[in-house]
């Protein structure tokens, strides 16, 4: 028997547009997937991938555009309709109830609520069959809390298959997997497409996309930036599509470098995903050290370590030639590290505090701002006013709640808070993410000015363009390992892209 000719794509999105306030998260995105096909959705963080999938699954309602599953329009904003139409989604953050068994997680929502009896026996048989057919070994009786991350993902996939999904969407599925687990996942996906499922594979890892996809759609700034059959493209071309055309670097004065301001020697971390593995890095005075890499490759661990939030599990941290003994956020501030956190709303500021209060969050115990536990309110206010002037912070005044400020002005305050201390070391973690063009230029100029003053800057960014434009030396981080440093101009984006994809490391598997 032959399969009937496919008249409809398994899934078709047409002109999906979604706005959050002023930001355009999805701008007229169209894409389709055929049964038996793996389409990779490739793009940087913030390119609009997750928003698109949330619209598809009914968590958000699109401002414009239509969704069709097997030729039928899907009503917007209804997860239940998406499920019923056969859309199965494996979220990046698993949606499993940890204290329940695998079987219960699979059964959840599959039977009418008011029917007596759970139907466990029949379900068990079907799950055993599905596990066998798709190579998804998992014990239905085990509690999810006892499962490894890889096993949990198998449960998520089984959940979709159990509901007879025709379209399986995986959001960054390998971010949490070991290479071996990722290989097993790919085997499962190949079996799934062989049985006629359509798969959308969301990723920003080039080598994975090359390994599993038939076709790739690249998103950038909420738009489709390009589309290609995997057989007709290569990783370097995809990398260029992802980050945009290579732009000429802005004029940057030659560096006047000094000694090593901060040295990480053989540091490892514990409790991160992935952890740093015996990483060594020198931050040199008067130099911007850029850290490029695909998100989730150890940037979080390195940033936490430098910011004082994490202690090294092995190795040591030296500042100005001396090893540091007790390491904490307070110690990092005390050692003169200016820290610009990745998440300015969550880590950088307290939304319900005033601008003035946020301005002294790290330094309130200094003699300048308080004596014997009493706050010098005039000094705090004067400091805030100086920052507002010096850093061009647009706000109603120092007593305004920081929540009311735009992202750019919030970032200017954080920048002013740390740069006014004339720091020897600066940790800038995604300093311009989500900012408008004007604020981007402002932040970058200030970082360059600090470099000219002799500060050692560590710039962490997933925007390769930004790293290449600003950094004097670029390292690539992949799976918690660090590439050698490449001097400014000695490497193309495509070359760095290969390192980002994990190639070139000695012990690359």
């Amino acid at each position, binding site marked *: 028997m032959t399969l009937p000719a496919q008249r409809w794509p398994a899934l078709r999105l047409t002109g999906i547009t979604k706005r959050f306030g002023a930001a355009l998260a999805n701008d007229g995105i169209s894409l389709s997937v055929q049964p038996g096909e793996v389409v990779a959705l490739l793009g940087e963080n913030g390119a609009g991938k997750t928003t698109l999938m949330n619209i598809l699954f009914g968590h958000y309602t699109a401002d414009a555009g239509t969704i069709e599953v097997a030729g039928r329009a899907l009503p917007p904003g209804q997860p239940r309709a998406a499920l019923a139409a056969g859309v199965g989604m494996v979220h990046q*953050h698993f*949606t499993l109830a940890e204290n329940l068994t695998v079987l219960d997680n699979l059964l959840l929502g599959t039977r009418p609520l008011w029917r007596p009896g759970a139907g466990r026996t029949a379900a068990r048989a079907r799950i055993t069959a599905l596990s066998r057919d798709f190579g998804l070994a998992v014990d239905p009786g085990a509690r999810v809390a006892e499962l490894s991350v890889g096993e949990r993902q198998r449960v998520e996939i089984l959940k979709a298959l159990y509901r007879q999904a025709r379209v399986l969407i995986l959001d960054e599925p390998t971010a949490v997997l070991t290479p071996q687990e990722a290989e097993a996942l790919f085997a499962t996906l190949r079996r799934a497409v062989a049985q006629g499922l359509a798969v959308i594979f969301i990723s920003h890892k080039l080598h994975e996309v090359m390994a599993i996809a038939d076709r790739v759609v690249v998103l950038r700034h909420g738009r489709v930036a390009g589309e290609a059959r995997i057989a007709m493209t290569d990783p370097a071309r995809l990398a260029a599509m992802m980050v945009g055309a290579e732009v000429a670097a802005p004029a940057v004065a030659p560096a006047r470098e000094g000694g090593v301001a901060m040295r990480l020697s053989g540091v490892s971390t514990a409790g991160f995903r992935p952890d740093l593995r015996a990483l060594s890095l020198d931050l040199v005075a008067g130099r911007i050290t850029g850290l490029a890499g695909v998100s989730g490759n150890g940037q979080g661990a390195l940033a936490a370590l430098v910011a004082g939030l994490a202690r090294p599990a092995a190795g040591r941290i030296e500042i100005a030639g001396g090893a540091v003994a007790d390491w904490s956020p307070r110690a990092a501030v005390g050692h003169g590290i200016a820290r610009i956190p990745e998440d300015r709303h969550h880590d950088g500021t307290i939304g319900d505090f005033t601008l003035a209060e946020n301005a002294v969050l790290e330094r309130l115990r200094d003699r300048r701002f308080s004596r014997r536990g009493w706050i010098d309110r005039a000094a705090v206010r004067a400091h805030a006013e100086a920052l507002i002037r010096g850093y061009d912070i647009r706000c109603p005044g120092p007593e305004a709640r920081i929540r009311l400020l735009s992202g750019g002005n919030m970032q200017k305050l954080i920048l002013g808070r740390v740069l006014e201390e004339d720091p020897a070391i600066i940790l800038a973690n995604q300093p311009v993410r989500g900012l408008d063009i004007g604020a981007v230029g402002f932040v970058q100029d200030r970082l360059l000015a600090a470099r000219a003053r002799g500060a050692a800057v560590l710039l962490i960014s997933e925007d390769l363009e930004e790293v290449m434009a600003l950094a004097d030396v670029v390292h690539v981080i992949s799976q918690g390992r660090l590439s050698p440093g490449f001097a400014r101009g000695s490497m193309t984006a495509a070359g760095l892209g290969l390192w980002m994809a994990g190639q070139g490391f000695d012990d690359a598997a």
Partner: protein
Amino acid sequence: MIDILLSVSFWVAMVRIASPLIFATLGELLCERAGVLNLGIEGIMVAGAFAGWYAAYAGLGLWPAVAVAFATGMAFGALHAGLTVAFGLSQHVVGIGITLLATSASYYAYRLALPEVTSPPRIEAFATWPVPGLSAIPLIGPALFDQTPLTYLAYGVAVALALVLARTPLGLAIRAVGENPAAVEAQGLSVSGLRTLAVVAGSGLMAVGGSFLTLSAFNSFFFEMVNGRGWICIALVVFGGWRPGKAVAGAFLFAAFDALQIRLQQTPMGAAVPYQLFLMLPYLLSIAALIAMSRRAAVPAALMLPFRKGER
């Protein structure tokens, strides 16, 4: 002490003391399994005690009176759920407010209904109804099966709730919504609908527990009659590790302590030990159980966390 433990009256009293606690504990357990701490329990029990008693006093009959109590509890449950589930307000503040509201509303209504009375009027309450056959078993028989029909209803509710939670799609959904509401939403079920259902039904059970006091134990309504029983039920849910069976066992254990301390006070040895120590024990055991369970994560993971769509 041995002679107390061997006396039939001790075991009968234990089951009688445990019965209202079983209803209310199961009600609280249902709320908490769905992720909502219901501190309104104390007041809802008062409201149930009053509403049930008043319905019987007004001549509605005993079983309709139980239904009136259940409906009263559901109404306060709906208020609780509206504020904590739909609007995501803090569960402890709302719970305290509901307790204050339900208690004072009951007392107010009692005063309005009976402005002049000094001694509370009695009603014809549920009589004991020995289960033929079973009540003849020595010791256990009279304790478990020579009680009022409301006690048998408590057994039934316990079994039914345990079965619903463990064996039905609805119970599974309620357990899941207390563990990870995002999982429930991802499977196309309504988080707020499930939580509201659990809080409304659970509050109804709490009120029936309160009505046991007026319809089956004291035969009249008076102030302070609930006397902290609701808070005890919160402890019993913790003590029982959020399991219906263990929580019911905890209710029996607490009732045994209570029945024992009354009887021990009359013995020379018992008079030497302050009875308050016995009464303190369940609370201290519950705190110890919480500490022990903090490592095993038996607490519903999403307890007290309001769920707002689209937020993570």
